[in-house]
């Protein structure tokens, strides 16, 4: 197309349209972008436009400014305003937003529909009149330039979000964030935040780039729209001739676009080589009419869209359309780019995929946890001084309300962490469509695991404190329900609900493995509720590939039957080495036992996680050390359980 053909508006276009852009205002803005952050701060305080009109007023002003009314550059339909023209362009000449636009712009839907219907009526009669197109393009860009300036001033979020989706294709200020850049000019984002010590200079070219792109895009879009329009006509012609070739079809094709006379040139307009036989035969590009040779680099067959049917876009490039026409490489490129745009728009219209949804869920939970965690840590610190030593705790009066609050926050946090874990695991386990996708999924998982490892730590601070608290609260051997406990009971179902099915299973398996009635009651009574212990386990088991987990835990008495047998043996051995231990444990008060049981379980889960990690990293020494600790822990646990 660029090889000098007279009816290509593209080249003429880019030169004519770029002219109005670099006006004095742009120069000034460009200068502003040069300065580093510190220097631009004062300037960016004054946006380029004096007022901040809304979109509506901008539209009005474009209409009322008295220029020639806007014509569609393709079919010549008159449009009352730039926005309407954009909609028209989208609907009539660029199908992509027909399916995707609805999702993005709520505001302009009706007006667009009207414009679209309107143009469809006239489309058949419209002729490609070159002069008309040129004039329309110029008028269109004068309007666009103004609108851009106006849009720049509208800093209200409502303004930018209500801008019709179509404007994204033709006006550079269409993006919500792009519009922001526009008036910010070279303002460095860093100026918005407190200055950091090691802050280097930077320079932003985004605004300049977008201006250049907009200038280029308008030409490219027109090219694309025109090519598409001709393809539609070709498709109709082919349908009328029933797929059979012949003079009639050729005549129809020539009506759509004038063919370059054979005598015009002796060489291919693409590769400039002389025409000859076989591959080097003369062909006419059915889209632009130029003479090209048949070499694969110069021309190829292009599949036509289906001519009929409401959703012409859907059929536009579908596989079941059979009619094909010869097209030159330039036109193929143009059509390819249009297809690419359509694909992207469609993908966007489909909305977030499974991964994105899960990811958003996990991030939301992380944000929640990040918000709550500082408060929780502060609370734990406030409670902690009161629980130095059992004696002090028994004598003092721990602030029940504080503990209750801490417990409530703790359950919130556990819930949030559970959601992070569940979502990231589902991402990791989901079907990967490509090796790259698999890598990303694994990376997301490990990032979340990293996050959990870092943040779940302070959760474990609370059980210890609560145990001291409960010492003061319980005068008799029975466990009373305190408000925080009730609260916890109420939140338990939610906690469980947040877990995915297999996690619940893990949690219940955990409860089963403990197996004694005493521990059942424990799950109800002790402050850090069993579900959360189970949750902690499931959270930590993320590190454990199932196989390793079985190996690590199997030897260490989690399994209901075989495990307990091993544990028994270990207990005997431990008792043999330290006969005083059992009596010491027997001497403890019930609630003390319950509390320490709780602490131990919590720790056990963590050690399990560490072991799996050590084994995965092949740090076998560490794993052995840890395994020994785990055994110790199990002995301690079983001893207490036996004495309950």
């Amino acid at each position, binding site marked *: 197309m660029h090889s000098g053909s007279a009816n290509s508006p593209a080249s003429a276009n880019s030169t004519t349209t770029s002219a109005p852009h670099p006006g004095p205002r742009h120069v000034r803005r460009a200068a502003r972008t040069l300065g580093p952050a510190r220097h631009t701060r004062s300037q960016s305080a004054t946006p380029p436009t004096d007022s901040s009109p809304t979109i509506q007023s901008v539209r009005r002003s474009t209409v009322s400014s008295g220029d020639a009314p806007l014509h569609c550059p393709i079919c010549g339909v008159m449009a009352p305003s730039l926005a309407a023209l954009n909609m028209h362009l989208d609907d009539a000449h660029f199908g992509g937003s027909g399916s995707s636009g609805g999702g993005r712009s709520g505001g302009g839907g009706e007006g667009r529909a009207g414009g679209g219907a309107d143009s469809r009526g006239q489309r058949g009669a419209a002729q490609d009149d070159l002069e008309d197109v040129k004039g329309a393009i110029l008028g269109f860009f004068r309007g666009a330039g103004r609108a851009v300036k106006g849009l720049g001033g509208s800093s209200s979020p409502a303004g930018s979000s209500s801008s019709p989706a179509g404007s994204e294709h033709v006006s550079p200020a269409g993006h919500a964030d792009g519009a922001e850049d526009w008036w910010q000019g070279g303002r460095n984002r860093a100026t918005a935040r407190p200055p950091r010590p090691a802050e*280097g*200079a*930077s320079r932003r070219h985004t605004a300049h780039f977008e201006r250049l*792109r907009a200038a280029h895009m308008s030409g490219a879009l027109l090219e694309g729209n025109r090519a598409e329009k001709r393809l539609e006509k070709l498709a109709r012609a082919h349908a009328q001739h029933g797929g059979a070739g012949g003079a009639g079809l050729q005549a129809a094709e020539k009506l759509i676009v004038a063919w370059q006379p054979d005598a015009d040139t002796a060489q291919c307009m693409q590769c400039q080589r002389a025409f000859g036989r076989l591959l080097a035969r003369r062909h006419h590009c059915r889209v632009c009419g130029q003479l090209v040779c048949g070499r694969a680099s110069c021309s190829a067959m292009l599949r036509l869209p289906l001519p009929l049917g409401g959703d012409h876009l859907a059929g536009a490039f579908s596989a079941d359309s059979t009619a094909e026409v010869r097209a030159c490489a330039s036109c193929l490129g143009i059509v390819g780019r249009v297809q690419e745009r359509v694909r992207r728009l469609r993908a966007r219209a489909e909305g977030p995929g499974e991964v994105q949804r899960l990811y958003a869920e996990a991030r939301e939970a992380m944000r929640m946890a990040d918000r709550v965690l500082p408060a929780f840590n502060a609370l734990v610190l406030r409670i902690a001084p009161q629980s130095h030593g059992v004696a002090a705790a028994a004598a003092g009066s721990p602030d029940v309300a504080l503990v209750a609050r801490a417990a409530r926050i703790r359950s919130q946090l556990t819930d949030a962490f559970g959601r992070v874990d569940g979502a990231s695991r589902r991402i990791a386990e989901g079907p990967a469509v490509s090796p*790259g996708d698999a890598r990303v999924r694994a990376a997301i998982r490990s990032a979340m695991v990293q996050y959990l490892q870092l943040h779940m730590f302070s959760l474990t601070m609370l059980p210890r404190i609560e145990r001291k608290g409960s010492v003061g609260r319980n005068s008799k051997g029975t466990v009373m329900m305190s408000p925080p406990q009730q609260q916890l009971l109420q939140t338990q179902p939610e906690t469980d609900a947040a877990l995915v099915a297999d996690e619940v299973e893990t949690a219940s398996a955990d409860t089963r493995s403990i197996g004694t009635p005493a521990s059942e009651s424990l799950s109800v009574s002790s402050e850090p509720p069993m579900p959360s212990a189970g949750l902690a386990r499931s959270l930590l088991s993320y590190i454990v590939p199932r196989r390793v987990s079985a190996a690590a835990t199997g030897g260490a008495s989690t399994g209901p039957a075989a495990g307990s047998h091993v544990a028994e043996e270990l207990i005997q051995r431990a008792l043999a080495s330290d006969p005083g231990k059992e009596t010491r444990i027997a001497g403890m008060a019930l609630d003390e036992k319950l509390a320490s049981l709780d*602490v131990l379980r919590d720790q056990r889960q963590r050690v399990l996680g*560490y072991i799996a990690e050590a084994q995965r990293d092949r740090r076998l020494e560490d794993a052995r050390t840890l395994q020994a*600790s785990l055994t110790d822990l199990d002995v301690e646990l079983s001893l207490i359980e036996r004495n309950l």
Partner: protein
Amino acid sequence: MDAIKAVQYYINRIVSDTSGMKVLLLDNETTSIISLVSTQSFLLSKETYLVDRIDNGSRDEMRHLKCVCFLRPTDSSIQALLDELRSPKYGDYYIYFSNILKKSMIELLAENDENEVVREIQEFYADYYATTPFLFHMGLTPAVHPLFAEGHSWNPGALARTVQGLGALLLSLKKRPNIRYEHNSAMALKLGQELEYIMDHESNLFGAKAGDKKLHLLIVDRKNDPVTPLLTQWTYHALLNDLIGINNGRIDLSYMPDVRPEIKEVMISQDQDTFFKQSQYLNFGDLGMSIKEFVDTYQSKTQSHHQIESISDMKRFVETYPEFRKLSGNVTKHVTLVGELSRIVSQNHLLEVSELEQSLACNEQHNNDLKTLRAMISNSKFPPENKVRCVILYALRYERAQGNATSELKQLLASNGIDADQVAMIDVVLRYAGASERQSDIFQNENLFSRGRNIFKGLQGVENVYTQHSPAIADMLEDLLRGRQGIHWQERLPNLDPKARPPTIGNESGMFNQDIIVFVVGGVTMEEELAVAKLNAKFESQNVRLMIGGTSIHKSATFLSELSTTFFP
């Protein structure tokens, strides 16, 4: 004035300015620049789940990821980016360039972004390699950017890269310096002029001055001190660099037999590794002590882990475990590294070699040195390259001495079966940095005055025979900071533009409240970085901060190979 922090600031902006699932695309140079100062887990924590090369053609399409690119504005990177924009594999694109973009590049990008996927284009000036807070380099290697065109003149590619890198460093520090250059070096002058041109041309960018501290950029030439890169270094960091080799903060140990898989490639970073931070400037002897203590600490910690009696023990264990775990990996790493170093040192008899090197570098003992040197050349236990290195040092020091025996030594080398190419290196170095090329009397043996000073120095005694040498740059800087500017100061380091700024750089009482960046054309050494680190500590009270950099970081082998292509007789 911290090179690492300056680069980290940009990397943090690159990955944090855009939220959401991201892929980070880099080119070959930015990959190294980033990996020197950042870690995988940092990138992960900033939602960067994939890092790939922009020129990797087999990347998978993932529309749901945002794409953050950090590229040098080179033709090849731009071309790869254009290809990517024409058929975008990801969602939105946020593009950051490590240096000043040409107008035509922006135009080219705009014309090729027909899918309108680009959301951001910015310049973030992280265009140099930050090895430590005081040490940076431009990553020039003979294969990619040969330094010399012909004799003492710049290869255009190397000059362009160096100007870009230094310009980026200044922008990242937000400084516009007063440039001085070594008077006898055409390369230093050329670099200074080019840099000045860039700063004038982009005066908006370089206009910024953070605070009122003055910055001096001293451009010096390696040829005025060819001795430092030829000496064996004994600090941990330098040993690792010279004997094993550090490549962008990573050490490849896979050549070792029976190496454990997790330490086939280890990372060395001040940021992540406290033991390394503490011991990077320790010499080999102190390092042995340090690593022993380190292992003892670890052992006592492991011991305590084995003795877990009570819940409280257990709790303590679990709580310290993450730290313990990190420690255990680190212990293995450093023990392996130090073990390997000591193997290489003893295998190559480096202590003996180093003693002779130091003697040649520091003391005027012609007959003694010659005798030792002859004995060493005839002894087959020393590796040939060390013999050659010592003869080069001899040739440099006694170049104009009576009874110079260089040619005899060359014959001796040849008769001991050393390649002619290697023997020729002696002449190569003399051509590059012989007495006629140098401007200062680094050996202090040329006139009575400097000889006297040398003798005086000798009287002070030496603490460690292997680390007597102090680089010429360090002596020069110390004189400057103390206010002992010496009589040749102005002649040696003139201002690039004597009219524009006051020509002085301090006064008799020393320098206060100023920063100095020293840039060595022809490569900086670890010994010089050590000297700068020491000076930084010593002159902290004067509020003077120093930084040193070079076209590359040299050890003796790379230094010689860089010279060999150009100065071969």
